[in-house]
Structures are given as C-alpha cells and as structure tokens.
C-alpha cells in the first residue's frame, strides 16, 4: 500500500500519526480513502476539487505537476509540501 506522510498540521486529524497508508492509484484516490480512516482530512487538503492553493504533492521525493491526478504505485511514498516558485 502507498505510504503517506501526514503534514504536521494535519496530525491532529490522524491522532498524532505521521506515517499512514491508504489504497489508491492516484493521489486523489489516496486522499479519498484516507478520509474514510481519518474523516476531515480530505477537506484540509482539497479545495474546489484541486489541491489547496499553495500545496503540492510529492511522490517519492519528486514534486508532481499533475496534482491530484499524479499516479502512485504500491511502494510509493506521498508527501504534501508547499508549492514553490522562484524569482
């Protein structure tokens, strides 16, 4: 099962748990399934059908440009980090 590292500020939803797992083949599916274990986490990550403004998903340490549609595999680790832009 893909692993998800819960951002510090969402660990209040997971009862303090930082490392969790969920089923799914895309970031969106992962979040949907995670929301069943930890109700409310979806709405903290997703707004208007997209990742919350300023947030990016990283799969296996690579920030994805596909957002919620990014594919994940069984051994993947997914993280949520601030989106960055440069000067």
């Amino acid at each position, binding site marked *: 099962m893909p692993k998800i590292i819960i951002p510090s*500020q969402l660990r209040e939803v997971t009862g303090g748990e930082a490392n969790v797992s969920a089923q799914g083949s895309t970031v969106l599916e992962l979040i949907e399934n995670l929301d069943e274990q930890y109700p409310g986490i979806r709405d903290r990550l997703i707004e208007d059908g997209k990742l*919350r*403004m300023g947030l990016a998903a990283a799969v296996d340490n690579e920030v994805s440009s596909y957002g919620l549609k990014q594919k994940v595999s069984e051994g993947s680790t997914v993280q949520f980090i601030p*989106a960055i832009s440069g*000067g």
Partner: protein
Amino acid sequence: MSGSNNGNSQNGNGYRIIGSRPVRHDGVDKVTGRALYGADLRLSDCLHGKVLRSPHAHARILSIDTSEALASPGVKAVITSADYPETESKIIDLGEGPAILKDLRANLLADGKVLYKGHPIAAVAATDPFLAREATKKIKVEYEVLKPVLHINDAMAEGSPLLHEDLHTDSLGKKSDKPSNVAKHLRFEIGDIDKGFAEADEIFEREFDTAMVHQGYIEPHNATALWNADGHLTIWSSTQGAFSVRAQTAGILNIPESSIKAVPMEIGGGFGGKIPVYLEPIAAMLSKETGKAVKMTMDRDEVFESTGPTPGSVIKVKIGVKKNGKITAADASLAYEAGAFQGSPVNCGMMCIFAPYDIEHVRVDGYDVLVNKPKTAAYRAPGATNASMASETVIDEIARWASLDPIELRKLNAAKEGTVRADGLAYPRIGYVETLEACESHEHYKAPKEGSFRGRGVASGFWFNCGFKSSVTVSVEKDGTVRLIEGSTDIGGTRTSLAMQLAEILGIEAEDVRPMVVDTDSVGYTDITGGSRVTFATGLAVIEAGKKVQQEMARRAAQLWEVDASDVEVELDVYRSKSDSSKSITFKELAGSLDETGGALSEQASVSPQGVGGGFGTHIVDVEVDPDTGKVQVLRYTAAQDVGKAIHPSYVEGQIQGGAVQGIGWAIYEGYHYNEDGHMTNANFLDYRMPTTLDLPMIDTILVEVPNPGHPFGVRGVGEVPIVPPCAALANAIYDAIGIRLRELPMNSTRVLKALLKEKGALPQGVEA
C-alpha cells in the same frame, strides 16, 4: 542512429559546445543600444497612461470624483476599480501556480481601501504623459485615514488594526475564529524536537529582524496595450513571462486568454519582480475605453512604492548541538511580510532555513503576515536569503563555540544524497559538500588575514530551482543555420545557453543557431523565466526538439540516398550510410537538399519535466570595518557553487557574481526606510543605496560541477543560489572583524557604528540601543 553527444571534445569535458564561451547572441543589439525595450515602442496615435496613487499607507476610500480630471486638456479616459468587468472566478491559474483574483485586482486598482502608500486608485489616458500626470492630480479622493501597520510584531499583536477585516489565519485548511493580519501559518516537523534538544550539550537561541528590500532592476515597469475593434488585445511589456501576462490579464479582465497576444520586449532586469503584472491590465482597460493604443511607464518612485519588494522578516532560530559540533535539533519560526495582500515566500524560507544540514529533529513554523507595504513579489531565491541570514550566523556561532573551523562544522553536519529536509523530502545527488571542499582548499580561505578591524566570514545557502512547462520550435534554414523559437524571456543569457544545447545535439556551431524569444501567438505554452529553470527545463525542450530534427534529417538523408532510414548513422554533423561508406553528407549540405526531400523541416517540443536539480553555494568574504564610522568595506569575495554543468561558464560566473552583489547590497546597504505614517522615505536610487562598482571587489567564482541526473548535460539552475549566502557571510565576517554579532539587516554604517559605540559604552544618551 547514434547520438551526437559522444563526439570529439573540444573542451576537454566530452562536449564540443557545452562548456565553451561563444559570443552572446544578443550582444550586438545590447552594446549598440538597439535592443528594443518596452519604453522604446512608438505606436502611431498612441495615448499615454498615468496612475493616481495613494498618498496614505492605510485608508478607507470614501469617494472618488474623476469628473474634473476627465475634463482636463488631452484626457481621453479615466478608470477606477469600478470599471473592472464582473467575474465569478475566485482563483485564476497562472500556469506555475494559482492566484487569488480579488487580491490581484485590488492590488492593481484599490477597491474600497488603500493598503500602502503608492497603491493605485485610478488611471488616466491622455495625449501626452505630462497631461496625463497633471490630470491624475485633479481626481478628487476622500479618505478616512487609518493607522498603518508597519512591522510584523505590530501586525501580529493582539488588537492590531486589520488590513482585511475578512481575513482569517489559515492553518492548512483550518481557519482562525477571529480575523487576523496573519494570512497563513505553516509548520514542518520531522523527528522529535524535544528529544533532539534533550540530547544537546548547548542550545543557541537567537532572533533576527530584516528589512524589506527591492529587486532594483534598472528598467522600470512598462506596458503598451492595443485593444482592437475585433476584440483582440495585444500587450507589449517588460515581463519574465509573456504567457503569465496573458493569464493574469485575462483573469483580471475576465476575457479568454486566447484573445490576448502578449509580446515580451527586451527586459532590463527582473529578478522575480517582473512576474506580476502592474500596468498591463490597466493599459488594456484604457485602450478599450479609448479605442487607441495606450502606453504606460513607471517612474522609479512608483517602482519602489508599488511593485515587487521582497519581505522584511522576523526570524527566531534555536539550534541544539553536541560538544563535538554535531547538531541534534533545530527549531525556527519565520514571520515574513506579505505586504498588503497575502503570499509572502515564507514557505520557501521554511524549506531553505536548515536545508544545508542533516538534522534528525527539526521543527519550522512560518507566518505570512500582512502589513501596509506594497505586496511582495518573488526576488531571486524568494525567502531563502532572510532564512539563511538567521541560520548561517547561528551556525558560525556554534563553530566558534565548538572550536571548529566553520567549514569543518558544516562538513560535519552537511546534507548529502538521501538527507531528509525539514519539509520531508529527501535529496537526490547534491553537491553541497563539494562546495565546502572547494572553499576549504581555495587560496582565499588559506590567505592570512592582515590588519586590524578586518574579518573573514563564510556561509552557505540552498535553492530548489523549478521545472514547470516549456515549449520550443526548431526549424532548419536552407543554409544549414537553425532557428530556435522559444517563449522564455531572456534575463540571464538563456538565448545563448539554449542555442548551445541545440548546437551540441545537432553537431553544429552555437553561432549557427539563431535563438529568439517570441510572443504568445508564436510558440507553445511556456511558463515564466523564474526559479532558475530556463537552461534546465526549456533546455530539455530544446534537446527533445533537436533530437527530432536530427532524426528527421537522417530520414531526409536516407531519402536522398534511397536507403532505409535505419541505414543512416549520425556523428556530430555528419550523416552516413552504414552500408555504403561513400555516402556521407553534412548537416549544412543536407539542409540545402530539404526541398528535394520533402520540404521544410520544423520540429516542436513541449515539456513539463521532473528531475530538477537543487543547488548549493558556499561563499567566503573578507571585510574591513572603519571603527570610527561603522562603514563596512568588502575587500575580497569568493563564491563556490554546485552548478551541475556550466553550459556557458561566463554566464554562470556572471549569475554568481550578480547574485553575490545583490546579496552584498541586501547585507550592508539596502532597505526600505519608512516614517511613522508608513511613507517610504528613500524611494529613489540615491537613498535606496545599492552597491556600485566602486563599493565592490572582483567577485571570484568557483564552478563546482556535480551533474544533475535529471538533465542529459547535468544542468542545475544557477541564478538564484548565489543570493542566499551573502548576508550571513558578511554578518560572520563583520563579527570576525569587530567581535560583535549583528542580527538586523541591513548592517549599514548606522547600525555598525551604533553597535561599536554600545560595545565601548559610548552610545550617546537617549539613543536607543
């Protein structure tokens, strides 16, 4: 078909073109003054626009009366935010990230409230720029003046006046009950911070305060817009991203992006500050209103007071360390000025603050804080310099405490491949340690320090670099030269660095490639020039398109020889038949035969790459402090950086030198100076002091090349990293010179003198320490 990358090296590095130093493609235009900038544009029957700006830092607009201005000589139109078309959207997608439409609009033309001195309120179009300016003075605005919020600590204090009454602090999707000037709170946490500090032998806890600074590009913002009767809008402007101009303008004016053609003019510096639009939608509205082209250019005070600064900040750093110098835990809190609307780069500061170190237990908090100052924009490694000033001076303190050389201490704790950063991501192959080793063995670091009040400082810094989306088109001319059509505004020599990558692939000379940056109608979608991404990401598009060209050229050769395409092999610019060694043709000759083998040859590539290589730099600086005046003179400066692979080493050196110089300015000269009413008192280049050539030594550079595995040539972005270490390096050098730690930026002569007098107990009575 075999690739051309394994050709004979002329540079001793396995490449023919990569790593050489051809003359820049835009050189002649620039040195002869013929390059066309936005202000050079002269359209017939063009009107001139001017903006009325708020004289107050914080006020409610009670009424606006434009009638007298409208009746003034030469005036053709006056607009305010009431003239914005209605829209349902809340968020607009700018390609490289979304933005809040309401904020974008209100920043361009104030809506109900003015939030900083210089905040645009209305705009006038008139037959000449002086008449337009005179007319702005005839717009009558009634204000209810409010107390301005000028410092982060005041903005965050209980009971502070609010900039936006409806703004609540967002903590990753959870909103605060009460409205606040803090738009966002973010937190990173890895390991167990309490455990980490419990393991420490000593804990260092320090606080820093840095001033708002400006990118200081020489060319002021400008825009000319022509809204045609057929509904098509053309915009010429100075921008880091023509497609971003299109997206922002389309969003603000609620028109389709496809109805806009954005033409990027030559650009006189951007450094992140020319990503947002300020004038384009206004010029467009004035053009729509009048049916004529409208040109707008800013004066320098407008640039300072209402565009681009990067945030001032308040940063707290706490680091725990073992006696042997091993860091056990690091905790930081960063509060950054967003300006009048949310969106400071505090997130980037949080990700960068401890980025050079492998620390098991880390916690970082970040606050995006609104103040009555211009909305901040990106500035070269946005947010990272402030953060590095804080962490890298504490690292220097720790090295002294542990009796370790500052480079040794850094090596002991250095991040390497696999190290997990505070935000949770692990590094791929990085070259941080290599920059430390390069500095350690450099002659500068070994040179004796002579003379009193002289000191040496070292600091390191990190920047991510970005990927984003790029497109290019490559077409072959009959004479064997190649046109490279791209959409990445050239602010750092990228026409040449892209042309060189194409030349390397095709086995031709860099001079035979003609690169050009074109408008949004003429090339596929391309994100901004920013995040040090162009040589990397647009470079990948160039490589892909170049390979397609090579493949098609091989097919044409096959056709010429009436052999199967698989029979053709390529070495550099020579195409050969494997089966018949008498058949061989050069790229140039083949180009002359395009017509007889199927006509024009043009290939396109669009990319959205991963594999961005982050970059590290380590800087060494020597200073001398005048003990009587507090003046700091930079004596010597050496900057080492992991550049992945330097495509054009002169440009890479230039980027490093430029970044170091901007960092030096930030460290000891520059800063927004406000009076208590919130008016900037140094909105000009005389009093906003940027370093001149007379203030600087030669900046020596060391190019460390640890190839980025995500790019075939190993390219890493290089433009932003070098602005990260200088402030801390200078603070550490000043400490070495006078034995006093300065924790406020700028460390200008006033501050240094005050610190020196305080140390001597000679601070005059009544002077705040």
